[in-house]
């Protein structure tokens, strides 16, 4: 393949994959929703989980986006420095968003700020949003696609605590966001927490946290312990599906962290709704690919 052909091929793969994830949930989310459904005894909560499952089945069968809000498209790229299309990737993902918007079809969700006009293409200044990590010596790229819907984006919040407030303050912050702002965001939510040094570093990590698999744990022992404590504590509140009460509240709590300034604790929360539409794909140097998030998926 010459370069032009390679670019065209990867653009098409990414457009198809982006449209695909709007119609089908990743395996970890699907499994978790099924597990939460079986844990419900309350008939109302059960009925809602059944509707969610019916909806996903209908979306798959009719090949339609499962929720009308297909979000703002975000790509989280972890590319090897030797990935052959490294320099072209930004343009490729931009064009993939245009393609997916037609294929989905995706709702038009990019409003140019200050001009306050919907571009009608899901692209605009810095949108699709790209987040980069470059890995030395590797020649593959792993790309996470995420549809950031309005409802699940609204609860997001970040602040900087004083060290005296400690992890106790982090606990208060997480509970406050989820029980006040999270209730309307189509629970059960996947809660992402960033613990870091400032608002923007914590916010970025909190978003990366909801890209991690449901049920996975932070490698640090204390952080992992806090994930479990927060998950159990939030579940005790019994927010239930759609905030209508139930046996549980969340799909899980994932924490991502960095070192911090001795005088600050940056903390942020990002949330993914029950229809947590994300996908992970590995692109090899020869542009063959492997879909990691959705087993058996064919584009």
């Amino acid at each position: 393949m010459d370069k032009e052909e390679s670019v065209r091929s990867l653009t098409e793969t990414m457009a198809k994959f982006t449209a695909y994830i709007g119609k089908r949930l990743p395996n970890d989310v699907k499994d978790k929703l099924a597990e939460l459904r079986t844990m419900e005894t309350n008939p109302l909560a059960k009925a809602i989980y059944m509707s969610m499952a019916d909806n996903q089945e209908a979306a798959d069968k009719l090949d339609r986006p499962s929720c009308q809000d297909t979000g703002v498209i975000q790509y989280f790229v972890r590319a090897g420095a030797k990935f052959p299309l490294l320099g072209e990737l930004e343009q490729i993902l931009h064009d993939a968003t245009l393609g997916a918007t037609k294929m989905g079809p995706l709702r038009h969700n990019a409003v140019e700020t200050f001009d306050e006009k919907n571009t009608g293409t899901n692209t605009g200044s810095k949108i699709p949003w790209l987040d980069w990590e470059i890995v030395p010596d590797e020649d593959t790229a792993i790309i996470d696609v995420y549809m950031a819907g309005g409802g699940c984006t609204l609860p997001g919040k970040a602040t900087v605590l004083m060290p005296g407030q400690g992890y106790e303050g982090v606990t208060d912050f997480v509970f406050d966001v989820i029980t006040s702002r999270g209730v309307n965001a189509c629970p059960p939510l996947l809660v992402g927490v960033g613990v870091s040094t400032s608002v923007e570093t914590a916010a970025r990590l909190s978003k990366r946290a909801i890209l991690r698999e449901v049920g996975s744990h932070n490698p640090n022992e204390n952080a992992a312990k806090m994930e479990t404590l927060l998950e159990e504590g939030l579940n005790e509140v019994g927010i239930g599906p759609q905030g209508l009460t139930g046996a549980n509240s969340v799909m899980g709590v994932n924490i991502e962290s960095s070192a911090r300034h001795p005088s600050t604790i940056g903390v942020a929360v990002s949330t993914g709704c029950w229809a947590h539409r994300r996908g992970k794909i590995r692109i090899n140097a020869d542009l063959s690919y492997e879909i990691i998030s959705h087993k058996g998926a064919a584009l």
Partner: protein
Amino acid sequence: MSRKILSTPIRDEDLEGLNVGDVVYLTGHLVTCRDVAHRRLIEQGRELPVDLRGGAIFHAGPIVREKDDGHFEMVSIGPTTSMRMEKFERQFINRTGVKLIVGKGGMGPETTAGCQEGKAVHAIFPGGCAVLAATLVEEIERAEWQDLGMPETLWVNRVREFGPLIISIDTKGNNLIEQNKAVFNEKKLPAIERIKSQVRFIK
């Protein structure tokens, strides 16, 4: 358990026995009606082009496809946040005689009062279930105020057993979401205290 089904036109006595938390389904007509339609009726005093006496509205902006024969097909229709209509809903109930308001999330004290005065209810359809909802629409019979664009047009849908609809405000002044919030706030306190005692990582 048999399903409780409401049919339009809905009468007062169909609603009087309902309590918050009950699950019902709707057969008959369901009209999409959101921000601008509310504004036109209440602020600009315009008549709605659809008679809603005994009727049902849906706070939703759907995706609709126009077929070759000129008919419309419902592709996707999910509820939008009802709270945006809080400012208008009490007067809206009063003016139109609407009986069932379907949306997402709770509504506030004004709507609760309106529901009590007008013997109406607010119900929640599960958010994110837009394809399921679309499959429960048998036909789009009419489209009014199309000048408002696809999301705001009043789409008159004939539906069969549309639901689940969870009653969140009943005719007696009860508001499920407000009650739930109070419960959540109470339940979270002991959980927070227990966690705090175990996360004193700064020593």
